[in-house]
């Protein structure tokens, strides 16, 4: 399986309070990879490192098979980027933004850009500084898509947008991806949004990659178990025990990852009783994953 993005041992420090450590990302080509993490976890910093805006302290990065930041111009020509905050020049009109961007991208698709301007109902003569937040979000997505990228790097692209605009933006994105089989790397703290569109997920917390797995595994593998009479020392478990806390009497609540039904037998082996298995939705799974990571000292 070829990788659109691959990092090994990536490290970066910003002041004394924040650092990325030993970041190993594997984004399969053609996937929609959701990069989840709470605010301040390092998602934007990671993206800026990936695209060569920042220089890593250690580690290596390969994007579309090219090393970064050395291959930045060639990679950026094939990568559409929507940053967290608006980056387009505020005094330029929508039309001027399109002309400016087209001048730098040889693959610019003018006809499709025009279609998107109409679909997004953008006023061509209006300066960026007079656009609403939603219109700016749509314009940023438009310029990223119309350059016909192989890779789209989207940093919280729908954060703060109303549901209608969010739907427009995501529709355009999904339409492009389905037609061109592009890879999408999208960061967000909006778990449910990623749940709908992504097939891979990476979870970042405090500059460390907590988990990286197919979305299906992430969604189906995290469970809440109600267990009675469990011994205090467990030894090896067939699943990953993320959390364990007493609830009432001799019962405990366990949060586990990698759960499969045959694992029920494990409880008989340790003299415990499994009372209940509850599916967690992605957001609950995400929260439990972070909690267990933090309880373990953030590795």
């Amino acid at each position, binding site marked *: 399986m070829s990788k659109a993005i691959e990092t090994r041992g990536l490290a970066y420090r910003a002041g004394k309070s924040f650092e990325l450590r030993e970041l190993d990302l594997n984004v399969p080509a053609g996937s929609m990879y959701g990069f989840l993490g709470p605010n301040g976890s390092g998602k934007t910093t990671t993206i800026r490192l990936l695209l060569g*805006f920042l220089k890593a302290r250690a580690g290596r990065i390969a994007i579309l098979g090219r090393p970064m930041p050395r291959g930045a111009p*060639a990679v*950026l020509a094939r990568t559409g980027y929507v940053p967290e905050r608006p980056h*387009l*020049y505020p005094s330029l009109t929508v039309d*001027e933004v399109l002309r400016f961007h087209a*001048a*730098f*991208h040889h693959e610019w698709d003018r006809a499709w850009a025009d279609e998107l301007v109409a679909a997004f109902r953008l006023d061509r003569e209006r300066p960026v500084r007079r656009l609403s937040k939603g219109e700016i979000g749509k314009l940023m997505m438009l310029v990223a898509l119309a350059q016909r990228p192989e890779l789209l790097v989207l940093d919280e692209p729908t954060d703060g947008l109303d549901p209608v605009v969010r739907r427009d933006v995501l529709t355009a994105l999904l339409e492009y991806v389905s037609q061109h089989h592009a890879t999408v790397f999208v960061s967000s703290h909006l778990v449910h949004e990623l749940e709908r569109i992504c097939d891979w997920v990476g979870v970042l917390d405090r500059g460390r990659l907590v988990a990286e797995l197919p979305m299906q595994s992430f969604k189906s593998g995290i469970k809440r178990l109600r267990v009675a009479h469990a011994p205090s020392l467990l030894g090896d478990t067939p699943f990953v025990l993320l959390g364990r806390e007493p609830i009432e009497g001799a019962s405990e609540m366990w949060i586990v990852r990698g759960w499969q039904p045959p694992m029920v037998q494990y409880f008989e082996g340790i003299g415990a009783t499994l009372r209940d298995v509850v599916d967690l939705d992605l957001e609950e799974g995400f929260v439990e994953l972070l909690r267990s990571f933090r309880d373990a000292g953030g590795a």
Partner: protein
Amino acid sequence: MFRAVLYTQWKWTRAALLVASIALFALPVTSVRQAGHGDQEWEAAEVLLSLSAWAPLYPITAALLGTLVAFVAWSVDHQGEHVYALSLPVPRWHFVLLRWSAGGVLLLLPVVALWIGLLLATATAQVPTGLSAYPNALTLRYLLATFVSYALLFVVGQGGKRLVGYLLVAVGAVIVVSVFDAIMGLGLGPANRIGAWLIGPLGPLRVFDARWLPIDV
């Protein structure tokens, strides 16, 4: 690419460039007209004295113009933390060169206005015996001075906050040493020495230390 960058910088500076062009066209026309006596014969000494009063405006406006265009070249990118510029598929040196070249081209507009003003002013003047008109030489000097200030400030602007910080620290250090020097009576004169070097034969601001007269001996 160059046209796109040139257009953005033109849009950001056009109002200031228009005002500068009008002012620079008017500067030689007004100064030469005031130096003369209409149809009467013009006195060489009076002409030189009158034009000398206007002369400082040339280097000052050249420095201001270069500073303005250099500042504007980077200000919008600074506001956006250079994210847009960095996301463009060109090497950084290439984008810097595009920005620098675009600013350089834009600087020509007010300089051409000055040149036309100088040509008009000197062509309609009664140049006294012993004096000559130097519209082309003054324009060239002005162009060079503008480019020197533009280039210096462009580098500072491109260098970002860190370079500005270093420069401010350096200026602060010179002020502190100068005050200490004055109090202790050491006679080091650091500010004077630095100033002399800047406009000295090998100094980067040498072009500013000249006679800025459209009509001179």
